[in-house]
């Protein structure tokens, strides 16, 4: 923080003097200074008094606005000196990021605590927009060991903790039990996509639904959920920093997906929210986030089954990515605000509250000690999501570390799954795009 204040100070001075810099003095970037500080320096919070009020920016993942409000109220009861304002800062992770970055540019209006998705936190880190939480974790005694290990590890870089998990999810296979029964299929998710390929025509013939399976809406989901298909076939978006999305395996996986739509004609692509299409009965099955679970159970007028994601010809497991959002603390706010935010962050992620959040949304409890018995009694399906965590695989670098890559993947998926574009050609061009982003935006910032 001290670093930041100094820089701002410097900017003001430079602006007042130099004529050329005057244009940028009202808040533009500095071009004279050294590279951006990363906020990596440990901040000493001893003797700091938490601020009286902080903003909490959320997009309410999994329709969590009500439960967020409820937890904040509990927080107010326990810490009457800190007021938390819940701000709806966007409809999705992209919009919240957009708002956050704009505020960064203006160096004002920043929240104390912000929801950051799997594809955004690294960008914030590399811009120096968020602080390392380690000293706060120590001072406030946040029990990091009690968190789900893999979920915490997602936000580790350079041996520091840059965020803590919040609305964390995996994709789940949702199926219409009634349709499966009518088609004479076993009451479970398919083990592999090949198995489902055999089931699909039967399902379609007996269910009366438009599709046997619907691919999640491409925007916001394709990059995430198609990893399941890619991994099952032995492919991926990337292997470390090698972009192999045009490999034989990757192409085969997406070719199969394309065929399911255009050749075998039992699959479709959702336009907005596959979970809604599923709940409406348009399709007999789909893949959607665990965060959609409670919503689906509420609106579906049939028996809902959930299961692990299907594997592919090369790999049956692990073929499930984790995803969802964490919470981070901006670097551009005062120590007092950061401390207050961390106090709230600690409260928000306590076992009891993560269980409450999970019960309301379907997101996974982030703490191993969270008491889920009551939650599971009410919604046993959450158990599947929790168990699947054991067989998840770390997401491909290309998706989570390259800014904008998720959207480029969605565009490529649109070309393949809705325009019936040539798979190999599309993937080759995606590879070039990803490499371009890597060289321009990421490689220079990586610590080798």
């Amino acid at each position, binding site marked *: 923080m001290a670093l930041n204040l100094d820089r701002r100070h410097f900017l003001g001075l430079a602006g007042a003097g130099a004529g050329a810099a005057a244009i940028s003095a*009202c*808040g*533009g970037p500095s071009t004279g200074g050294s590279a951006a500080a990363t906020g990596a320096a440990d901040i000493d919070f001893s003797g700091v008094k938490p601020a009286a009020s902080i903003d909490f*920016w959320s*997009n*309410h993942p999994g329709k969590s*606005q009500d439960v967020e409000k409820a937890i904040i109220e509990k927080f107010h009861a326990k810490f009457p000196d800190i007021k938390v*304002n819940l*701000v*709806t*800062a*966007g*409809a*999705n992770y992209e*919009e919240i990021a957009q*708002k956050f970055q*704009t*505020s960064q*540019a*203006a*160096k*004002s*209006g920043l929240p104390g605590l912000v929801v950051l998705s799997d594809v955004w936190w690294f960008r914030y880190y590399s811009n120096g927009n968020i602080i390392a939480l380690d000293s706060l974790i120590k001072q406030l005694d946040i029990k990091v060991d009690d968190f789900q290990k893999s979920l915490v590890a997602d936000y580790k870089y350079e041996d520091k903790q840059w965020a803590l998990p919040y609305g964390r999810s995996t994709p789940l296979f949702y199926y219409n039990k009634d349709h499966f029964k009518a088609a004479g299929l076993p009451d479970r998710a398919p083990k592999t996509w090949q198995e489902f390929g055999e089931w699909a025509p039967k399902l379609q013939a007996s269910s009366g639904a*438009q599709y046997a399976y619907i691919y999640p809406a491409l925007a916001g989901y394709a990059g995430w959920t198609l990893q399941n298909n890619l991994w099952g076939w032995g492919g991926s978006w990337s292997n470390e920093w090698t972009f192999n999305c045009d490999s034989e395996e990757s192409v085969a996986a997406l070719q199969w997906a394309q065929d399911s739509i255009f050749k075998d004609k039992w699959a479709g692509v959702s336009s*907005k*929210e596959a*979970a*809604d*299409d599923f*709940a*409406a*009965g*348009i399709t007999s099955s789909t893949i959607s986030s665990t965060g959609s679970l409670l*919503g689906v159970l509420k*609106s579906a007028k049939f028996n809902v089954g959930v299961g692990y994601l299907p594997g592919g010809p090369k790999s049956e497991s692990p073929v499930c990515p984790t995803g969802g959002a964490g919470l981070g603390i901006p670097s551009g706010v005062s120590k007092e605000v950061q401390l207050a935010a961390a106090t709230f962050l600690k409260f928000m992620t306590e076992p009891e509250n993560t269980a409450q959040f999970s019960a309301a949304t379907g997101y996974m409890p982030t703490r191993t000690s969270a008491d889920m018995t009551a939650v599971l009694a009410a919604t046993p399906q959450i158990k599947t999501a929790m168990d699947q965590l054991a067989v998840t695989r770390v997401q491909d670098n290309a998706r989570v570390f390259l800014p904008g890559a998720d959207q480029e993947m969605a565009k490529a998926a649109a070309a393949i799954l809705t325009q019936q574009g040539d798979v190999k050609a599309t993937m080759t061009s995606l590879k070039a795009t990803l490499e371009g982003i890597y060289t321009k935006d990421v490689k220079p910032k990586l610590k080798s």
Partner: protein
Amino acid sequence: MSLLSPVSPDPAANAGPAADAFDADPGIPPQRHRPFSRANLVQTLAGGYLPLIVATLVVFLPLLWMVLSSFKQPGEIITMDLKILPESLNFENYNIAMTTVPFAQFFLNSLIVTGVGATIKVLLAILTAYALVFVRFPYKNVIFVLILVALMVPPQVSILPNYILIAGMGGKNTLWGIILPGLGTAFGTFLLRQHFMTLPGSILESAEIDGAGHWRRLWRIVVPVSVPSIATVALVVVVSEWNDYIWPLIITDRPETMTLPVGLTLLQNSEGNGSGWGILMAGAVLVIVPILLVFAALQRYIVAGLTQGSVTG
């Protein structure tokens, strides 16, 4: 929305006298002197009404669909068999829309932003246009060209610099922060200047001989004879302030200071899934209908004014 881009710096383009807007009075059939010819009769019967009805339906059906859907429950929307009419006149969606997000507050904010913003803008436009036309000043043409060029700067392009500026002044999440950057009005100035150019110089000269100063000449002579043009500018400004989207979206993130279109996006954020369509349509009704009513009441000015000067290119 850029309502009207420059018409022409050519004063002839705007040769219509102040009574222009009245000429478009809907009560008077446009072609008074046209004989009721046989050909015309045939045209009326064969093709007269059909295209009109089609055109009107194309406009109204989507809006009607919006209103109908705003009464439908999720079960009536998330379904494969579409029902055209809602099962009942259920205001539940309006209720949800107005409790999920504070629509009354949005409405009030929109009213304030539009009222204050539009009033100041119109005033500034009148003053500047008067100065440009009737007050001697060097470089008036340069200033006018600069105003013309300002019309070319897409407002979206100024977002980031303006955000940095306004946020730095503490204008984030304030109504003045929403209003201030849009106050300078190139469009209104331009349109009124074009109109003032057409006023006969004689009436002002006689006033000047009577010893009337600029201030009196402006309010006693120029403004009264220009009411229709000013009304037009006012309505265009009201409409664009009311509908303005991207700037209020960027500069506010608290419901207390959001305007209606931004509030509608906030509602979309909260109800952005299939079952939320009914609620979103209710929200859309709340945003669209007020301006539709204003338009219906004053359409003859707005329609007349927007086409001002257009026919001569």
